[in-house]
């Protein structure tokens, strides 16, 4: 048992750090640092840079373009990407649908989708939740009725993140209503967003932005070869996928970065005022969150170490999700408290690239802290709400 990095690991860390220093585009970094929303083009450009380096899909098997890295290497990479404040890969393709395709898909599907997903030529989105099926996902009603060599899909998916950017959507749909367990009638289907009958409508969220959508399917014809794996097995595949989503959702490295930014803000004297670092109570609150985060970092490392010796990421990933989002939201709150009155002006436009820095109200992009606090209340709701996670842990870990 030891905490040190090997010489090889140190060299790897330096290699990654150098890459981010040299290859991460300054204009995208400026947007990230200022809290400016990235465009679709920004995401794709950056992801293609990662792809060129071979680092677009660090968890994929090597045969499909993965890295073959050890858990420690992956951990170091996640740290560096966060410390560079670089965007993560948009998860829907590389992290979510691809593992389903390379595990359960046909050879044709692998050829058709994996290289283009890896190269960010396809933007995926997720079709799971429905207006009536949130926590109770298995009650989903979107139907895919077999008609010759097609399915005809009717229904509505919701909370579809960045669906307005997407080329393809992967969906859980009901192919059979006449089954003992309703989970058994669910299948996993890939749908081209350009197919007639697919419409995307924005959902404006609490902070006033469009991030999620409703996707409507009206008599959408999808070739049967877009079914992944077996009909009726979609629930099993989807569950696996959700567990992957949950480990990603903890966001430990990202929270470490944000915590370091908060310490920078605390040290500053804003408009000539007293630095917040002199407020002992705030310092205590921040230290308490940091301690929880350090613990979670080791909880994640322990999970990764267990996975490395062959254990599947199981219900433990629920713990990472719950604790990780609790910490994210605690940090959101502290950023807002640090901003004081300057959390209140609703001026996202002043953080567009063109807006002169010296005319900004407040003291920097932390003025967006309340908007971020509002937006990130989603963290404990999506990816399976934290209540659902607790149900899972209670059942599968505690045996209750």
């Amino acid at each position: 048992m030891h905490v040190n990095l090997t010489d090889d690991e140190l060299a790897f860390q330096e290699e990654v750090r150098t890459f981010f220093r040299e290859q991460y585009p300054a204009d995208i970094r400026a947007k990230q640092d200022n809290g400016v929303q990235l465009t679709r083009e920004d995401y794709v450009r950056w992801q293609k840079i990662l792809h060129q380096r071979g680092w677009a899909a660090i968890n994929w098997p090597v045969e499909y373009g993965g890295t073959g890295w050890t858990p420690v290497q992956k951990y170091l990479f996640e740290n560096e990407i966060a410390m560079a404040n670089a965007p993560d890969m948009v998860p829907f393709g590389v992290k979510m649908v691809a593992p389903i395709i390379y595990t359960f898909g046909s050879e044709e599907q692998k050829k058709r989708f994996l290289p283009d997903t890896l190269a960010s030529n396809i933007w995926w989105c997720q079709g799971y939740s429905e207006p009536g099926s949130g926590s109770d996902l298995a009650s989903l009603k979107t139907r895919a009725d077999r008609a010759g060599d097609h399915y005809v899909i009717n229904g509505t998916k919701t909370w579809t993140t960045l669906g307005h950017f997407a080329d393809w959507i992967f969906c859980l749909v009901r192919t059979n209503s006449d089954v003992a367990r309703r989970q058994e009638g669910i299948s996993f289907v890939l749908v081209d967003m350009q197919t007639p009958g697919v419409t995307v409508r924005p959902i404006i969220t609490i902070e006033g932005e469009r991030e999620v959508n409703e996707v409507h399917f009206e008599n959408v014809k999808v070739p049967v070869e877009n079914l992944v794996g077996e009909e009726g097995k979609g629930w099993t595949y989807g569950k696996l996928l959700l567990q992957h989503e949950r480990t990603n959702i903890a966001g430990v490295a990202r929270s470490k970065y944000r915590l370091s930014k908060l310490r920078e803000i605390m040290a500053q004297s804003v408009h000539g005022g007293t630095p917040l670092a002199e407020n002992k109570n705030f310092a205590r609150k921040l230290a308490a969150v940091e301690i929880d985060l350090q613990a979670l970092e080791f909880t994640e490392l322990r999970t990764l170490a267990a996975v490395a010796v062959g254990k599947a990421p199981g219900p433990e990933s629920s713990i990472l999700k719950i604790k990780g989002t609790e910490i994210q939201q605690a940090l959101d709150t502290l950023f807002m408290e640090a901003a004081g009155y300057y959390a209140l002006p609703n001026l996202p436009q002043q953080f567009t690239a063109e807006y002169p820095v010296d005319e900004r109200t407040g003291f920097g992009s932390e003025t967006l802290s309340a908007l971020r606090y509002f937006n990130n209340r989603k963290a404990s709701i999506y990816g399976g709400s934290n209540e659902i996670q607790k149900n899972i842990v209670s059942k599968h870990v505690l045996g209750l």
Partner: protein
Amino acid sequence: MDFSITEEQSMLADSIARFIDNDYSFDKRMAIVESDDAFSQQVWQNCADLGWTAMLFSDADGGFDGGAVEMMLMMEQFGRGLVVEPFLANVILAGGILKRLASAEQKADWLAGIVDGSRQAALAFAEPHARYDIANIATSANREGDQWVLNGSKALVLNGGAAELIILPARTSGEQTAQSGISLFAIDASAAGVTRNAYKTVDGHGAAEIVLSDVKVADSALLGKPNEGYSALAETVNDGTLAVCAEAVGIMRTMHDKTVDYTKQRVQFGVPIGSFQALQHRMVDTLMACEQAKSLLLRSVMLSDAGSPEAGAAISELKYLIGTSGRKVAQEAVQIHGGMGMTWELDIAHFFKRMTAIDILFGDSDFHLDRAAAAK
């Protein structure tokens, strides 16, 4: 000790409740928020016609002699209706300074228009560097001949964009954080040297940053005696703090009730989610938070009306409790509503934002817990 309210007080609360229910729907409110001023002149005039803008002023000032109880009843309802009209800024803050310090002539010029609803005003109580310390004033007012020359910056001036009249504390002597040496001025918002950067707040209210560059005013702009403005400022900010706490109690209760209702309607796993014990126990916790907040609100209101020397500390205690338990109630409401609680189209999201803004206004719960602990 008596918790009952008079028939007049009951009628006041009822009339505002009817207004909210009949004339201030959520859709209407959202349309008002989208408008340039972030409030409706027509609604404001309506409030004035019904006597609400006059309610908290003395008979001598043309009002109805309402006290903290009337204020509480009104603000609770405004909270329930998410009303964005600038009652706090005009009546309680700007009006609060004027009723305390203005001469008869100044009252005729300025207060009368606030009482009858014809004039928009603001109190610039915050400065960019000062966080929540209202005595920390760097804005200067220097004597030049028979004029005062004002220089400085004011942050988050509520109603600062629409206001024709800006009331502001400026330092006429003393150290930057001293309570003595603060003087209050009333200036025309369109005076030379006044720059306003108006915006909306995250909860849909109007506000502005204001910069004063060699703004020249006569002695007639001075409210009360020079250097002695702090106590009126502090009393007025205490009134404002109590007012937003009452508003918050209305919001908390509404969010709690809407959440309980939602869990009775929303079916998952074949049953209403309100049947899940984990959620039930959390909603009991939020109910208790609502009741405790209401209790401490009543305490502060009664102490304020009694003119108790404990009233100031009591308001800090209340603001602390509102800050912490209001945050909890609001977060639970969103969480239990799930994705729906995150959408712009549902009122829950907007209650959530207002509750969050109130936590920050006049100092957050940490600030007030410090004040409460220091007063022991």
